[in-house]
């Protein structure tokens, strides 16, 4: 009896000793564990499930049938898939205008003039409203019969096609709508960045003879590197996952000419009950995004190491 207590006592002592010795190693894992569990359940597991699903044929209910790479073979020959992919590339490239516009708007707003607060809040506005509203507003704006664009241009004798109904213009019409809130987003990032620039440093640069463009490129922009990095990341991700505007404004039409991968995936899953095929599209989109995510992580990694 006495022996037993003493051994169990010793055991607790030794586990405590172990914990104490390795506290600095163990505690970080303990703190990370809850977040990691959530991440695993709601992010990693669905990714794996979705990739697995892309090798099957499944209608959402009923049995799944293993089809190997068939879905991917079909994608390779699917004209709509390629259109969507190309449109995604248009989105990606043209969306990069958002950080540029955002920077200039931020530079413009970053002055102390009477009434600038009102102007600023006007520029913030598209960032606050939902994408759905943005889509609706732009759809009305483009309306060939009653839209603002038509009302402005027609008296000037400029005629233009119905943008969202034109298979060559629809995608660009949506991208312009998307650029509006995205520019506001980037502007906010840049305004925050500009706020932390030492005004005396700008003055020093002025005394050093740097003006206008050279002042911007050589002195101001390097201070905004962090803001630029984040603006690029959110813009690229935003362009690749563009979905709501397409759904609201054209539903991918006309004739799938304005489709994008995210919407095409949704279309296949929800309207055609082709879960396996939709998963294959999702997997391709995921792979493309991973290129950026890996770049992003590598940059973060390098920064962390540099900071140390």
């Amino acid at each position, binding site marked *: 009896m006495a022996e037993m207590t003493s051994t169990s006592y010793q055991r607790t002592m030794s586990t405590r000793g172990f914990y104490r010795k390795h506290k600095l190693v163990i505690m970080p894992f303990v703190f990370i564990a809850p977040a990691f569990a959530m991440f695993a359940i709601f992010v990693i597991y669905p990714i794996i499930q979705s990739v697995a699903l892309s090798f099957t044929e499944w209608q959402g209910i009923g049995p799944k049938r293993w089809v190997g790479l068939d879905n991917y073979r079909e994608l390779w020959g699917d004209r709509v898939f390629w259109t969507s992919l190309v449109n995604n590339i248009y989105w990606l490239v043209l969306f990069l205008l958002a950080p540029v516009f955002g920077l200039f708007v931020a530079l413009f707003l970053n002055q102390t003039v009477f009434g600038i607060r009102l102007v600023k809040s006007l520029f913030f506005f598209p960032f606050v409203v939902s994408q759905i509203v943005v889509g609706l507003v732009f759809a009305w704006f483009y309306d060939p019969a009653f839209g603002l664009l038509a009302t402005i241009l027609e008296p000037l004798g400029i005629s233009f096609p119905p943008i969202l109904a034109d298979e060559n213009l629809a995608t660009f019409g949506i991208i312009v709508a998307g650029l509006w809130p995205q520019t506001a987003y980037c502007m906010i990032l840049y305004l925050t960045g500009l706020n932390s620039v*030492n005004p*005396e*440093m700008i*003055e*020093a*640069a*002025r*005394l*050093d*003879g*740097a*003006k206008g463009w*050279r002042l911007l490129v*050589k*002195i101001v922009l*390097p*201070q905004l*590197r962090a803001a630029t990095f984040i603006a690029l990341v959110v813009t690229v991700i935003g362009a690749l996952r563009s979905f709501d505007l397409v759904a609201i404004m054209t539903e991918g039409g006309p004739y799938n000419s304005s489709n994008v991968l995210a919407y095409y995936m949704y279309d296949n899953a929800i309207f055609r009950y082709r879960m396996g095929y939709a998963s294959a599209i999702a997997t391709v989109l995921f792979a493309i995004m991973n290129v950026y995510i890996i770049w992003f992580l590598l940059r973060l990694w390098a920064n962390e190491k540099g900071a140390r």
Partner: protein
Amino acid sequence: MADVVLRDVRKSFGSADVIKGVDLEARHGEFVVFVGPSGCGKSTLLRMICGLEKITSGQLLISDENMSEVEASDRGTAMVFQSYALYPHMTVRDNMSFGLRMAKTPQTVVEERVRRAAEILQITHLLDRKPKDMSGGQRQRVAIGRAIVREPKVFLFDEPLSNLDAELRVQMRVELSKLHNEIGATMIYVTHDQVEAMTMADKIVVLRDGLVEQIGSPLDLYTSPDNRFVAGFIGSPQMNFLKGQIVEVAQGAARVSVPDAPDHLLGIPLRADVSVAAGQQVTVGIRPEHFLGTPGGPGLEVSIDVVENLGGIAYAYGRTVASQDVILKAESETPPQSGMSVTASIKDEYCHLFDGNGQTLSMPAGALRTREAAA
């Protein structure tokens, strides 16, 4: 030849008048210090000279050229900021050479100037570092180096030492004075620290509320301040001020009674052109060092509250019989103790006299002496 001339310079921000008419000259090679309480417009004045702020009215000449239409970068001035304002993404070398590169100076000239400036400031070993990897003192040197390489006619410093710790401040103060002797350029230096002003300046400009209170050499300001503000601002610890009343005026001197020293009538020599009358209320100013340590005798009776013994000298803080706070300077071999009551006898001819508006009436002995020495 004057390097910098200001004529009735004014500056308003909207409806707020910040500089209300300043006239001053800095001669070539002079070390001019602007001093004054925080918010009096020192920085604004400096920023108008270098062109960061527009002049609302008045004239600014640098080397006899009117600067109203000249760009900040073309004025031949270089500024050192309080926050150093280094470019954080550039190495020290690039920080220092940026201005020259902007001006398209030939590469060899740039390198040579950076090398020389770095040698003067002893920062050659730091040339490839970034500002974030340096201490405050080192950054300060780089900021000064950035000014030196441009070889300006006029150096402008805006409280350059106020971010440094006390020890470093003293060291940099001496080095800046050395630098001035070495380079020989005109320097205008802003500070709110009167010790910096006294130790470094050839000429001090005391500012208050956007107006010049007095311009003169450090000793001038110390021995014959033009008004009560300057008298109080220059000198540490502060001059003591006692209320008094003129009893009679005779032979260029006033006899003044002071309630704090009831048994003593002060005889204070007056300036030539002042009008005073018996019965006038005045303020008597006495610097802590101008009390005599003689025990007894007519003078100020002071009960001592606190004694600061600095080794060599001691300052005694106390109150007079009329409950006026005063500071006395004493030799620390025999310093008064707190709780003691001492009689501080007054050297009449070292007293200052101010009228109700704070204008100086007196001609203190110290001023007479420096005037004679100058003549």
